């Protein structure tokens, strides 16, 4: 009996320590990144760093506005394409598709999540970039980044949206149909609004993935430091900028890359808290009803 209590207690403590350790890792990363970023932020100044338009680190110019805009454009572009596609696919999977097709489609979508981003980049480089070059410009472009990111965030949007559509109580649908609504009206007016918090969260998580993506983008967006004017122009988002230059960066240049990481860190924290907020509000709304 005693040994059993002992095992209970030690395992509880062990789990507690492990949980703390993972939190400690997070804190350590944040502290280290900030510490490495500090020299650049101090020397350049936060405002000049965030709103400067020239990035020439070896000549002492550290403006990341083109990168912030690059990240925003590429993420928004991907969301514009991925949301209708993803939500449509989620509705198909949750409500329309016969079970046999769903049995096949759902694992396929989940498999997409596991594909390493470098594979997306490679496929984009070989398939998408030459096509875009046919239209005009250098091929490596904002548009190529949007296409690749769309494919990458689709699975996130599909699987979370599908779960939240499935979670809509059966009685809502039956109630709508009983009142004489068509299937379309039921879907559009009842199911989707009820599933909105989950769909919203999936979109925000998709944005989060788009903002953090480095490897696939560095291969297809061209990385020119000028602010893109057309979708066919090259772009230079934040995360791939770190991936591009980290190899050879030393001194202040290296510190500036860490400062970019801090900006990314803050962006991701904001995006994730937004996702959590949306989901929590959704949960509350369901509970009240």
């Amino acid at each position, binding site marked *: 009996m005693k040994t059993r209590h002992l095992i209970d207690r030690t395992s509880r403590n062990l789990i507690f320590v492990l949980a703390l350790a993972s939190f400690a890792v997070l804190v350590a990363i944040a502290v280290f990144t900030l510490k490495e970023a500090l020299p650049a932020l101090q020397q350049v100044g936060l405002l000049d760093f965030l709103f400067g338009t020239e990035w020439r680190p070896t000549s002492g110019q550290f403006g990341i506005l083109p990168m912030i805009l690059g990240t925003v454009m590429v993420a928004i572009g991907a969301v514009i394409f991925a949301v209708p596609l993803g939500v449509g696919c989620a509705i198909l999977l949750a409500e329309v598709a016969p079970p046999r097709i769903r049995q096949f489609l759902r694992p396929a979508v989940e498999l997409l999540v596991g594909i390493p981003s470098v594979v997306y980049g490679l496929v984009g480089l070989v398939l998408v970039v030459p096509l875009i070059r046919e239209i005009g410009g*250098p091929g490596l472009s904002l548009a190529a980044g949007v296409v690749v990111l769309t494919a990458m965030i689709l699975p996130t949007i599909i699987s979370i949206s599908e779960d939240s559509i499935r979670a809509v109580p059966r009685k809502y649908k039956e109630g709508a149909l009983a009142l004489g609504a068509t299937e379309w009206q039921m879907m559009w007016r009842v199911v989707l609004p009820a599933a909105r918090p989950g769909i919203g969260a999936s979109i925000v998580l998709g944005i989060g993935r788009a903002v953090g993506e480095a490897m696939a983008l560095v291969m297809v967006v061209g990385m*020119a430091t000028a602010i893109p004017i057309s979708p066919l122009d090259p772009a230079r988002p934040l995360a791939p900028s770190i991936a*591009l230059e980290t*190899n050879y960066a030393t001194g202040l240049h290296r510190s500036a890359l860490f400062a970019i990481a801090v900006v990314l860190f803050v962006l991701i924290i904001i995006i994730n808290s937004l996702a959590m907020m949306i989901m929590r509000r959704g949960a509350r709304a369901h509970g009240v009803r």
Partner: protein
Amino acid sequence: MCAEAATRRVIAVVSVLLTLSLLAVGCGREVAGTITEAGSTTVEPVAERLAAEYVEKHPDIQVITGGGGTAVGITSVNNGLVDIGAASRELKADEPQLVKHLLAKDGIAIVTSPHNPVSGLTKDKIREIFGGIVTNWKDVGGSDHAITVVVREEGSGTRTAFEEMVMAKPEPAIPVTNRALQQNTNVGIRTYVAGNRYAIGFISFGYVTASVKALAIDGVEATKENAKNGTYPIVRPLYFLTKEAATGFVKQFIEFCLSAEGQAIVAEEGYISIA
């Protein structure tokens, strides 16, 4: 039955550990000394070949080569992390002054697609193209199409050397256009230029293959001979760096690299031997 599962798990863990330790024993051979080298990725392929040849002659010595870039090579040899650092450019005044061993020279080729009708440019035009002043191929004898400039990322030794030899001379220096595409490897630039007939980029001589065309500069063909005899204008030194004068087997290794045999390997790898 619970105990049975647990026993099986223990057996699995033990056998994995045994296999690993056997592997470790199998790998270890008698080593009298280890030489570590890191730095310029331009030097990396040559250093790898030289190390392999050297180890074949001296099986008791282990040579570990790595990349990281010129700046990493300089700092790691200065901090004593590696025995030999590799640099693909002159040391700057604000960098630690290390002992330089001239290993080879390397030309930087200005490359386009083989389908591009332009086969030569003046150094001034090259400067204007990479500076974003000349932006259409028709201004330099090609077809009427926008020029796509591809460069290495900031911090790369190849880019620094290119900027010093082309963009900075004559004064005042022109910065590389911010519309230029950026790639972080020689191979990345080569692949892109090979696939886009309106692109222009620069890569080290060692990376030039038939998939791209190296342009003549001021009428001088981009050949190793022209680089060696000093007529080709964009040539940079490749150095092995040591913190102090090399001693022991590090010295022996560097001497091997500079010997006729070592220099033959340098030439085979596409660089310009100094012998």
